[in-house]
């Protein structure tokens, strides 16, 4: 139960649902359990009534007796209905409190999980896959909820039912009670094992289901290879055997599940038979009445489910406990990038100077450093360009400015202050960042642009889109700025996505603008337009641009050529051309490329 105790404060929060809920649970069970005794009384009275009525046959009071008996029977029937209505009412309230409370707690739990997720840095997201996080936010929370709501409800109900029923039964006949209860422990134990088996087998089934799914996914992704080698048949056969295995596991599970209801049926049936058999003998001895037999049969069938549910509840609690541990592995992760004692809250503005002092970085201690000894100083409103091949460390470098990563050694400064001393919010507020892998939300174009600035006015959105050279495209979209992008809307081309994300950064009017290879998917003409509008803003922001096209970087105040985490060359375009090194060479090639594009 260890990890589950961490949930206790939630029970406290919702005590005004739980306390009445549990009372209702008890009341409902109590009223329900009293129905059989009314049934017994009715049944036992009927022969007496017949007798009494027979005695008064032909007398004057005959009609009165009839109406009296009629009324008494009606009273019995009314009591049965009344009791079940009251019990039902409490049952209704029980569900409306305890189960509803579990949904509230689920809601709170999920909110705090998401809230915490937002504080965690990219390092965390490298460790946990998206799927893993989603599983925790859905599956695990759901398992915890079942413990909180249904499990607690069933336990309470079962205990009340079993205790009351057994005491009443005991009063009537201890002997018959013992006989009738023989199958009960067997039932609880077998349900427990069956539930475990069902869980285990459905996990295995689920596993295979994922396998089948990924098999399909992979075959379709690699369909060209399969077709080139005409391996479709072999792939189909492989798929057949995965499906076969899936079928097999399905049947494994079916075997347990098929046994489940018959087993249940047998247990209840056996109890009933024992009651009739042993009860019959007791009736013959005159110890109990036939009404008692009926009463017992009703008790037994009422108790069966609660007893069986205990078996379920135990596995539910076990699973919930594992889920709580998994959830807390995330909740207990302290954010590694956050404001702290070193933060200087008085800093509210950013000028835009960016300085790296001997910055080195490695993702992982065993790995080669991704950056080695990087130093430069970029004054406000200047432009820095970074070029170099994939894996040279360009993105790593720029990610340090908004503190997505922190240097392993050295210092990153903004306005001459260690970035760690600037409140995270202030720092990021002043940075417009366009990342290499464009990420847009499934929302409208307008909202995606306005993501950069809460409460942006329409005018600002249009302006930003204009600067990102996106206006002409937006006009072609079915609903203009209100067009949905992503799965449920239109699919944007790579270039359109990039430009949307540029607009998203520009709308913030940031002091520092970072383009991490943000123009790779647009053609040269568009690139020219965007750079032009950026230049028109020149003087209003510091620009850091990572690019492959040298046309984009020529006018930078400083160009860094990166190679294997180090700065290979540095200088302005003219200086680097004069140096006649890597940069100059790359430049020549790109000129040619443009020529070919223009050819013919």
């Amino acid at each position, binding site marked *: 139960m260890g990890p589950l105790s961490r949930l206790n404060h939630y029970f406290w929060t919702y005590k005004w649902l739980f306390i009445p809920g549990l009372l209702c649970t008890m009341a409902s069970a109590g009223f329900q359990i009293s129905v059989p005794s009314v*049934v017994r009384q009715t049944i036992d009275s009927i022969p007496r009534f017949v007798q009494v009525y027979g005695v008064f046959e032909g007398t004057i009071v005959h009609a009165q007796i009839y109406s009296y008996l009629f009324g008494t*029977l*009606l009273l019995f*029937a009314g009591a*049965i209905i009344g*009791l*079940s209505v009251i*019990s*039902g*009412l409490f*049952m*209704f309230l029980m569900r409306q409190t305890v*189960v*509803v409370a579990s949904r509230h707690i689920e809601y709170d739990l999920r909110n705090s999980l*998401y809230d915490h997720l*937002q504080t965690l840095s*990219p390092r965390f*997201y490298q460790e946990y896959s*998206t799927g893993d996080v989603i*599983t925790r*936010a*859905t*599956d695990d929370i759901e398992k915890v909820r*079942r413990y909180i709501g249904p499990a607690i409800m*069933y336990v309470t*109900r079962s205990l009340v039912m079993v205790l009351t029923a057994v005491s009443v039964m005991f009063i009537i006949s201890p002997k018959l009670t013992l006989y009738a209860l023989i199958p009960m422990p067997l039932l609880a134990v077998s349900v427990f094992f069956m539930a475990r088996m069902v869980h285990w087998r459905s996990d295995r089934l*689920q596993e295979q*289901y994922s396998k*089948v*799914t990924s098999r399909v996914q992979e075959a*379709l992704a690699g369909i*060209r*290879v399969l077709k*080139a*080698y005409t391996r*479709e048949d072999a*792939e189909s056969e492989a*798929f057949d055997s995965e499906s076969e295995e899936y*079928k097999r596991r399905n*049947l494994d599970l079916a075997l347990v*599940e098929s046994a489940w209801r*018959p087993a249940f*049926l*047998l247990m209840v*049936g056996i109890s009933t038979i024992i009651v*009739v058999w042993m009860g*019959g*003998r007791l009736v013959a001895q005159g110890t109990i009445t036939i009404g008692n037999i009926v009463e017992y*049969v009703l008790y037994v069938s009422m108790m069966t*489910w609660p007893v069986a549910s205990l078996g379920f509840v135990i596995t539910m609690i076990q699973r919930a406990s594992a889920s709580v541990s998994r959830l807390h592995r995330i909740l207990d992760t302290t954010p590694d990038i956050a404001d702290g004692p070193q933060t200087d809250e008085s800093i509210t503005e950013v000028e835009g100077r960016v300085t790296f002092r001997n910055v080195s970085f490695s993702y992982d201690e065993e790995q080669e450093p991704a950056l080695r000894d990087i130093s430069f100083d970029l004054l406000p409103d200047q432009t820095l360009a970074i070029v170099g*091949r*994939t894996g040279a460390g360009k993105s790593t470098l720029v990610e340090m400015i*908004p503190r997505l990563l922190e240097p392993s050694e050295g210092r990153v400064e903004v306005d001459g202050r260690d970035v760690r001393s600037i409140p995270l919010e202030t720092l990021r*507020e002043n940075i417009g960042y366009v990342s290499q892998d464009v*990420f847009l939300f499934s929302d409208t174009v307008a909202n995606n642009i306005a993501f950069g600035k809460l409460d942006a006015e329409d005018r600002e959105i249009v302006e930003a889109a204009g600067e990102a050279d996106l206006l002409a495209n937006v006009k072609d979209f079915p609903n203009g700025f209100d067009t949905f992008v992503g799965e449920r809307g239109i699919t944007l081309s790579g270039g359109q996505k990039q430009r949307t994300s540029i607009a998203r950064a520009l709308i913030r009017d940031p002091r520092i603008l970072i383009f991490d290879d943000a123009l790779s998917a647009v053609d040269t003409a568009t690139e020219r337009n965007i750079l032009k509008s950026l230049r028109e803003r020149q003087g209003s922001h510091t620009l850091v641009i990572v690019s*492959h096209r040298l046309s984009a970087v020529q006018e930078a105040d400083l160009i860094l050529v990166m190679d294997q985490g180090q700065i290979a060359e540095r200088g302005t375009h003219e200086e680097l051309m004069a140096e006649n090194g*890597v940069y100059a*060479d790359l430049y*020549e090639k790109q000129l040619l490329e443009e020529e*070919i594009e223009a050819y013919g």
Partner: protein
Amino acid sequence: MASSSPSHSSDTDERSGTDTTDVDVREIESTSDADEHDPYADEKPKDDGFKFDGRLIRRIADYLKPYTGWVALALTITLGASLLGPIRPLLVQRAIDNYIVVGDLEGLQTIILLLVLALTGEGILKFAENYLTQYIGQNAIYDLRTAVFRHIQNQPLQFFDRTPVGKLITRTTSDVEALSNVLSSGLVVVIGDLLRIVFIAALMFYMNWVLALVTLCVMPLMVWITFWFRKRVRVQYREARNQVSRLNSFIQEHVTGMSIVQLFNREDEEMRRFEAINDEHRGAWIQTIFYYAIFWPSIQIISNLAIAGVLWFGGLRAIAGSALTLGVLFAFIQYARMFFEPIRDLSNQFDTLQSAMAGAERIFNLLDDDRSLQDPDDPVELGNIQGAIEFENVWFAYEEHDGEPDWVLRDVSFRVEPGETLALVGATGAGKSTIMNILLRFYEVQRGRITIDGVDIRELSLRDLRRHIGLIPQDVFLFSGSVERNLTLNDPEVTDEMMRKAAAVVQADDFIEKLPNGYQQDVKERGASLSHGQRQLLAFVRALIYDPEVMVLDEATSSVDTETEELIQEALERLTEGRTTLAIAHRLSTVQDADKILVLHKGQVRERGTHHELLAMDGLYRKLHDLQYAADTQVHGDGEATRDIPAAPATPEESRA
């Protein structure tokens, strides 16, 4: 993330409670409802009313045909089980009236024995029925699933260009799953439940028709509330599932784009939005709880209503002198409680049938749209070929635009003699990859023809054609699994020897054997990821295994480390030796060594000749040559986004660009 839960749970959850009127197992154990968030889910069923499409049901039923015998057996068993169940209260009635009341303990023992037999019999038959129906269903599902997969795989590449993979995955997985309940228990359970209801009613009438009528009076109420509940809960579950998938996509999206959220200081705003979605999610479920909270107590009240009715009426009748025994009263109390189960089962079946229809419709639409290339009726057989390839005035377009084909190749003609190497050179989008695509007949040319050794490729079977051509794409696609699996692609005809021999030719055996598990190494396992160069070598081996006469290769653009570079260079030479080779060349050496070079520009052959001839021409080739090969080994750009070439344009937009 758990994808949509397999079929079994919702069905079995429904079945797991016995005659308990107060608890829903569904809520305890219903993983399927909460977890049904399929990332690939599409086309949500919109039906609210029940569409009973006989044609569709017949098609579904066709999948049961191979199992007719089993179905018949299952029906027989169901018949037995449905009969044995209602008999037990009758036996108890006999026990009470004939033996207990009169104190005949001997006779009681006999009837107890009968009761035990009936009970055990019913248990066994029920078990057999449950398992058998699952057995039939799972087998039919297996047939359907593999048929769908085969069908998809046989479609031409055009189909895959058009259809998102996610959609196809949904067809083969969740849509098929949706049918499994109908196929497994559908028919049998419906018949079994109807039989049970009939038997119970018949026995009640046999015992006492007045009480039977009284009991049956409450039945319409029970049917009504059950179906009302089903309907409400179905709508509500759909709503809840929508909320679940909204919640999931929100989390999915925000976890993926978390750094964007953080960079743009959107934490508070996104938290607010998350809370809103989470709130709606909670609301949808709380509404569901409401229906359950109404349903279970109602069922309990209704069955107690029946009991009260039986006692009251029975009591009055007894007083009035009718021969009503206590045993009969007892039996009726039992029957009143027995009715509920089959009614609930029926309403469930109704439900599953409905959700299955939507899936079935999508599946059959897919199966009906078959565009797979049919092999010619009487294909020409190629034995050992020479490997002469000829393109004759080939025109090709991937798609039409406003009724006009978007020509990607225009009037392309060339001939490669056996053993020759032809290098294809041109800028991106010039049509190089397309030439490979149509040579392998991934796509059909619109005009002109392509021949191998003089035979039109359309007269060959696809298998024959492709087995004579080895394809080496630029980006190597590796399947998960072992190196061996990736080399042989599960072809049982490929012997170990063939594989090792091919590996030796391109000297890939060295590095493969050095892998921790050699040929059995899992290629996607963490820490054992293969380098670019090694992947290339694997692709070489894959192509070489069949010892094809023609080699089609698209050289990788990205530079690999120098060691592997040399290895690959050497491997390439061995690979092309003595084979007709078509290469999209990115290495100077490959182009220089080619017997012929074809310079493509915008789908047309611009220049052709040998390296020296073309250089002398001082045309497009010269420019391309200077661009690509002059400054080899210098800092490269990141390279364009590479596809698993040869590939069709990924999106129409790109191809037009």
